[in-house]
């Protein structure tokens, strides 16, 4: 009976997606996943039979999508058949969505690469245990959702405990991540040395005190690279571990050079996404790629071909305008984006406060919108919290006459596309649900 429901749900998925595609050309919803789970609640359990090699989950606050995308790209570049929930919808329905659209009764895949929200990991493992779990970092952006950072760490720990054969690939530079899965086999990646070659602007986002997850005293740092990440140590003995995949990185204006030292030798990679933030994502994916035994040249090729997916830096041309779309979702990530934003472009900032965005928009005040204060063109603000954003910009030093408020997202985009000269560039900075909404914008056609 269960099996029949499973096939039925797969059939439903294909039909539904065909329907959706013909109706409004969208595939970015998790509606199909929702229906699939309605028809067959343990759909995901059946999916474990359709993978030949490994199931890899990626979680963490920042960089999940980029890291998971890079991993898929590495695997596919090595001729592997991969399913990846790449639409950025990383809740359970999103996973069901991705799997139901790809799986066929007699077709099997080599890998699933699944990105999951920290809070949904336990739930995911109830149905679909994993072989590898990669944790990128744990920032405090989801504070309002889970109470405190400790709670998030606990949720991940619970998920790990449910999954006895899980291999952990952890960011050794993040003190909140390294002690997860206390007694498990762990493989660490981290940077020994970070060199910022250009762009010397220093973020003034508050440097938070970080407490030792073991004894709760304030951690000390021999070097602090980025937010809580660096070479930390504590009087109780907790410290940054020896990393199996350690790297040196040089951050240039629009690329990074990452040198990775491993037991198998030293390899150098060039990666085209900007900022240390992305260098960490690359190091994470490279480490897993090497760990799975893939060749460094193929990994480099995959890095080259990697298209920043789902808006994390989507470039497109719309009615003659060069448009760059970059997700913003927490102060640290947003400040990194703002630091490098093109000040000659026309900026549109879209702030929503739905559950997946975080309902509390306090974080806007911890992000360095001050980087925009010398902008020449008007800045447009949109989304449910457009007015909050307008106030934030005013206090960042931007003249109110240079701020226009257009709450409806589609209207704001149409307005820019229609009112600007053809050679004018547009930069769009949306929060998560704003970005989801943008995937279905009519202006894309």
């Amino acid at each position, binding site marked *: 009976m269960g099996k029949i429901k499973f096939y039925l749900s797969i059939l439903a998925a294909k039909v539904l997606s065909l329907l959706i595609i013909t109706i409004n050309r969208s595939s970015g919803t998790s509606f199909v996943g929702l229906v699939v789970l309605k028809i067959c609640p343990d759909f995901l359990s059946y999916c474990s039979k359709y993978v030949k090699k490994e199931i890899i989950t990626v979680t963490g606050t920042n960089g999940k999508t980029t890291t998971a995308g890079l991993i898929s790209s590495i695997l596919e570049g090595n001729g592997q058949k991969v399913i990846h929930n790449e639409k950025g919808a990383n809740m359970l329905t999103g996973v069901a969505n991705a799997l139901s659209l790809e799986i066929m009764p007699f077709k099997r895949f080599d890998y699933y690469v699944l990105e999951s929200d920290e809070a949904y990991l336990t739930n995911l493992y109830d149905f679909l245990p994993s072989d590898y779990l990669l944790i990128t970092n744990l920032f*405090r952006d989801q*504070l309002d959702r889970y109470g405190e950072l400790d709670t998030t760490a606990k949720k991940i720990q619970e998920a790990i405990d449910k999954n006895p054969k899980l291999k952990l690939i952890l960011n050794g530079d993040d003190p909140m991540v390294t002690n997860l899965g206390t007694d498990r086999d762990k493989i660490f990646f981290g940077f020994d040395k970070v060199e910022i070659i250009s762009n010397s602007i220093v973020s003034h986002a508050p440097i938070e005190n970080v407490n030792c997850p073991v004894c709760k005293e304030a951690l000390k740092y021999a070097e602090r690279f980025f937010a809580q990440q660096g070479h930390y140590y504590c009087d109780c003995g907790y410290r940054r571990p020896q990393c199996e995949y350690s790297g040196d990185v040089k951050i240039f204006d629009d690329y990074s050079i990452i040198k990775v030292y491993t037991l198998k030798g030293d390899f150098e990679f060039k990666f085209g996404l900007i900022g240390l933030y992305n260098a960490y994502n690359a190091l994470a994916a490279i480490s897993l790629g090497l760990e799975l035994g893939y060749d460094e040249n193929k990994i480099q090729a995959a890095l080259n071909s990697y298209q920043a997916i789902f808006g994390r830096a989507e470039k497109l041309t719309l009615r003659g305008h060069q448009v760059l779309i970059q997700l913003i979702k927490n102060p640290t990530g947003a400040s990194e984006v703002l630091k490098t934003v093109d000040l000659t472009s026309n900026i549109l900032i879209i702030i929503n406060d739905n559950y997946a965005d975080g309902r*509390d928009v306090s974080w806007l*005040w911890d992000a360095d919108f001050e980087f925009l204060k010398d902008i020449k063109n008007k800045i447009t603000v949109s989304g449910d919290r457009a007015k909050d954003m*307008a106030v934030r910009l*005013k*206090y960042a030093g931007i003249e109110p006459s240079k701020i226009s408020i257009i709450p409806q997202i589609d209207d704001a985009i149409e307005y820019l596309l229609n009112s600007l000269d053809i050679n004018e560039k547009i930069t769009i900075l949306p929060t998560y649900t704003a970005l989801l909404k943008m995937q279905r914008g009519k202006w894309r056609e």
Partner: protein
Amino acid sequence: MTETRLKISLAHLYPELLNIYGDFGNVLTIKQRCEWRNIDIEITNINIGDKIDPEIFDFYFIGGGQDKQQIEVSRELQLQKNALHDAMNSGAVALGICGGYQLFGHYYQPHNGARLLGIGLLDAYTVAGDKRFIGNVTAKTEFTVPKTLVGFENHSGLTYLQGDTKPLAMVETGAGNNSRDKTEGARFKNIFGTYLHGPFLPKNPHFTDFLIKLALEKRYRDNIELQKLNDELELQAHISLINKLY
């Protein structure tokens, strides 16, 4: 007649420890609204180990943090308690938000474990609750025009007021101090506490100005009228948040 420039001196208490809800936005708002009026403002960060001189400051601000940071600040505040009481008695303005507000009261009693001592500027105490209140808040205060205050709350502590300490506002949407008596925040003399962040001051410019005026009047011992600013954007944001879904 040459006008002398007015000045305010503000102490931002423990910004490295208590800063989780955009608290820099509150201080930035005070700063900008002073500077737009050509009022000089000097901001001093007070960190652990710094002695507070109540002669210097007209305005104190303290934000919110996670449990561990709050414990550290609680310990430090005991050493600064007398100085801050002197400040209060001289009419200085203080605004405490979330955790900072709780520390302005007598204590915070967790479910298990020792009481976290406050400094008793407000006749108030806080006990741990079983539920976390997270959502948009609208409250009404008697101190300003317009009367509405808007913000976002995220706390599980239940705060109760007593004696001469009065509520800052009464909630219309949201839980407020304890979700029972409809009170939100507190005031005694010029000491203010609130659970509202988001942050609080940018979205309530009328309340920010009320505090700036009090701080100036403390410094100059005279009635001072603030120059009006164009608050169109701030008020649009304010209005859009009134009675927003919790």
